[in-house]
């Protein structure tokens, strides 16, 4: 791959209401201390988190390795990980306790990505919907990062297959959730996602930036006044709105980041003869994640490869109908398996990409966690026991390396894994999730 070229500038600051707005700098050799594992001033290298989701589970008989420990074998569905196996810990036999059997798929995705049981919106005689019961793990991490070392974007939400389920509420439609009432939509077009990150590279005309901020100041005053008149939940919605305005103001004022602007992706996620360009989009998104991390424009990304339930057709496997339907058809399990292999190939591409990007003495994958999960163990049963979980990346050295296969024989909670993942970002974190999904016990098998 082409090496990312960085060039240095002195300061990366904007001014907002008199306070400096610092953006992250990419990590340059010259900035590191003598051991290369931290900046010269002792600040550790940035830690990143990607949550990576695909819908409808796996075929457990072709997913779960027989051997445990670092010498685990790559099963048919794990085979695409060959080049990054050392970075991958495969966790099996875990129980998604937050998904305690209320509604298939909803249970699976909400539990595996937040540790909170979902909230059902089922008022008797209207259509069923549900929302997350708490923030998804990426947003918990993003909040922790924003407090200590804010980046240009607190987090980035990406999606590959556009055919997600939209009729059952935020739980199935979105992967990232700041809270129950604040789902974060995914961006499906790599060109737009790219512009979100790198649009700011364009030098700004000073008049317009200042005036845009002035206009937003007026708007925030309005929001504050309105806040005094509305009920408690609307107060919170307006608070979130004002926080987003404040962030936007900071982004408007930010000085362009110092990375050399990478090339604009050609992929725009338009169907070709009715087929989604899943592979090309997934790769384009992986490339964007890699360069966003390298330039430290964000440290948290969620990627929805396909939706929970959803209508994704894995045409490259020969399938002509949607994956979710196939999972419920006993005769079509081979196609289901092939779709899993396809998805794992996309996941592996991202890991390989991050591994190929040097940083300090190692690479970006060394300083990242890429958490993979789904919404069921197998689509055909919607079971929340033994859902597929992979934790890839070394988490800055906190996570076990080389990666292991660990099969729990003690009904361990998938939320334990989320807590371990979170602790690589925020070492002070002590708990994740709530109620049935609650955990304050990190997953021992993942500890370095």
């Amino acid at each position, binding site marked *: 791959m082409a090496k990312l070229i960085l060039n240095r500038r002195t300061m990366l600051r904007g001014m907002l209401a008199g306070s400096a707005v610092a953006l992250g700098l990419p990590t340059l050799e010259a900035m590191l201390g003598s051991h290369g594992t931290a900046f010269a001033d002792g600040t550790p290298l940035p830690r990143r988190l990607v949550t990576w989701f695909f819908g409808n589970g796996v075929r457990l008989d072709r997913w779960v390795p027989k051997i445990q420990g670092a010498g685990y074998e790559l099963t048919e569905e794990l085979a695409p990980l060959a080049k990054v196996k050392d970075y991958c810990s495969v966790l099996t036999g875990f129980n998604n306790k937050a*998904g*305690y*059997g*209320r*509604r298939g798929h909803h249970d699976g995705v909400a539990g595996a990505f937040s540790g909170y049981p979902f909230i059902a919106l089922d*008022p*008797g*005689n*209207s*259509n*069923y*919907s549900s*929302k997350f019961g708490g923030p998804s793990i990426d947003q918990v991490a993003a909040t922790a990062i924003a407090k200590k070392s804010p980046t240009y*974007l607190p987090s980035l939400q990406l999606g590959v297959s556009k*055919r997600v389920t939209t*009729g059952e*509420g*935020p739980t199935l439609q979105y992967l990232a959730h*700041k809270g129950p*009432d*604040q789902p*974060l*939509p995914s*961006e499906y077009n790599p060109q737009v996602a790219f512009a979100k990150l790198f649009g700011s590279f364009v030098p700004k005309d000073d*008049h317009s930036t*200042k*005036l*845009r901020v*002035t*206009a*937003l100041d*007026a708007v925030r005053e*309005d*929001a504050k006044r*309105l806040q005094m*008149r*509305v009920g*408690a939940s*609307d107060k*919170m*919605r307006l608070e*979130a*709105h004002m926080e*987003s*305005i404040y*962030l*936007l103001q900071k*982004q408007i004022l930010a000085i362009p980041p110092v990375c050399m602007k990478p090339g604009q992706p050609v992929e725009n996620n338009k169907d070709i003869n*009715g087929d989604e360009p899943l592979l090309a989009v997934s790769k384009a998104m992986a490339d964007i994640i890699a360069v966003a991390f390298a330039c430290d424009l964000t440290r948290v990304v969620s990627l929805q490869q396909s939706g929970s339930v959803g*209508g994704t057709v894995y045409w490259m496997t020969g399938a*002509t*109908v*949607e994956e979710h*339907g196939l999972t419920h*058809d*006993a005769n079509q399990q081979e196609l289901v398996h092939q779709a899993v292999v396809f998805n794992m190939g996309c996941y592996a591409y991202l890991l390989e990409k991050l591994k190929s990007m040097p940083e300090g003495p190692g690479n970006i994958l060394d300083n990242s966690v890429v958490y993979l999960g789904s919404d069921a163990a197998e689509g055909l*049963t*919607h*079971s*929340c026991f033994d859902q597929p979980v992979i934790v890839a990346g070394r988490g800055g050295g906190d996570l076990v390396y080389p990666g292991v296969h660990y099969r729990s024989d003690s009904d361990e909670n998938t939320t334990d894994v989320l807590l371990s993942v979170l602790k690589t970002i925020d070492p002070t974190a002590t708990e994740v999730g709530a109620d049935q999904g609650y955990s304050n016990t990190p997953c021992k098998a993942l500890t370095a």
Partner: protein
Amino acid sequence: MATRDKYLWGAAVAAAALSACATGTLGDPPGSGKTSGPEMPPVEPQGFKPPAPSLRRLLARQYRSSVRDLLGDAAAAAADPPADSSLNGFDAIGSAQLGVSDDAVTKYEDSARAVATAAMGDTARIATFLSCDPMAPADATACRKDFAKTFGRLAFRRPLDPEEIDRYAGVAETASTELGDFNSGIEYAILAFLESPSFLYQVEIGGVDPARPTLRRLDGYELASRMSFFLVGSTPSPALLDAAEKGTLNDAAGARAAAKALLAKPEARAALDSFYGEFLRLRDLDSVVKDASAFPLFTPKLAQAMREETLHLIDDIVWDQNGDYRDVLDADYTFVNGDLAELYGLPKPAGDGSGFIKVQLPEEQKRGGLLGQASFLSLFSHAAISSPTLRGKFVRERLLCQAIPAPPANVNTVLPTDPNAKTAREKLSVHQTAPACKSCHQAMDLIGFGLENYDGIGAFRTTENGETIDPKTDAAGIGAFDGAKSLGTLLRDQQGVTSCMVRNIFRGATGHIDTPGEEPVLKELDQSFTDSGYHLQDLMVELVASDAFRLVGVVE
């Protein structure tokens, strides 16, 4: 009720929904008691207690229409608001509950900037908001304040107070000074107005109703917005805001008159089409995927024609005839273009086939109304085959307001493979007998089996995989039927269907699921809908005039 199965799933399932399948209460219309039994006379809305109001973010389509009405077509073309998120089947409910993301706020700013720039190109329209010549303003400060007052009232759908006028005039002044011309100031003020929560949210706070001090009603401006967004999908017109200012919307008679005037506007049709796009999920036809080998006729163009067919029928009944809404369920005619005529096996219309013509449906296909239309039949099918379950689920949930719970977790939902099973009814037979499946699947599939003469894109067929299809069925709470028309005819006489329609219209209009405290008023609306001969226009007018639309609870 035929379904009296007492089997309970072991798993914890949403209790209300589960009891619906397991105890046989399916078939009871919402809030109207049992289907049988004497009609209750209309009663005073005793126990009426509306829920607390909440902020309702403008739907994307309402945002675009509002920009068009405020600033013209060029500005509307530049508008690009964030997408909606639906809850409980309606965007309006999502917009009343969910918060915005960082991305959405960024998108609102991008959109407002593009709109403001485009709007400034229409100097004639901008001049209508100005009290001075923008090229040579005599008193620029006063002129900016007048602009904030005039445009702000339209954008915020209420008068601005002096502090707000100063704030937005101040934005204009800063920009004018910085950029050295008056118009740039106006452009930045427009930008700010369109980013404000007072524009982006319908604010419904209400105040004490002087005529009934124990109740709270929306003020005239709030009601003007609520009815305008509901009936014409856009911001209230200057005339409607004037009516609010004069106080003519403060009672039921005034609200009724204003609603009638709104329904006379051409935009009312488009607004109702949008509602049906959501309610019947017609908008999903944009992204529906069909297996090309099973359905070579299916194209995106055909899918659009399917959507239009249904809207044509609704338009015809609701607007052109102002007839009985229930005809949508069993009309013996429809509207086809060339592609649809081919799908249905009807003679093609003359010309290039792109136009729609009204046609009588052939009796042998047993089609009639919505449930025989390709839109419904395609949407509630799988990619390669029909789905009696999805079709039945739609009828139960959307037309009868009966919730169907999800399959219990951890149950193997894979159907056994039976090489002798050719038809859907045969393939799904285990769902009719297995204890864990049958209580809910009977409720759904026994409706869908009666529509099996229509394949996964709505074409008529008599066989499946070489075997003759048996389309005769008997669905609990509905009755025995065979084909779409006979089902529609049974449904049109169900009180559950018409009261469900009342509630769905109400949900879309108010952005919340009806609460028990609103039932007394909704029951009155059920009655008035019946009394009107099921005229949907009358229902919408009476809904606007009702306490359930005009009153709100205390802000909590």
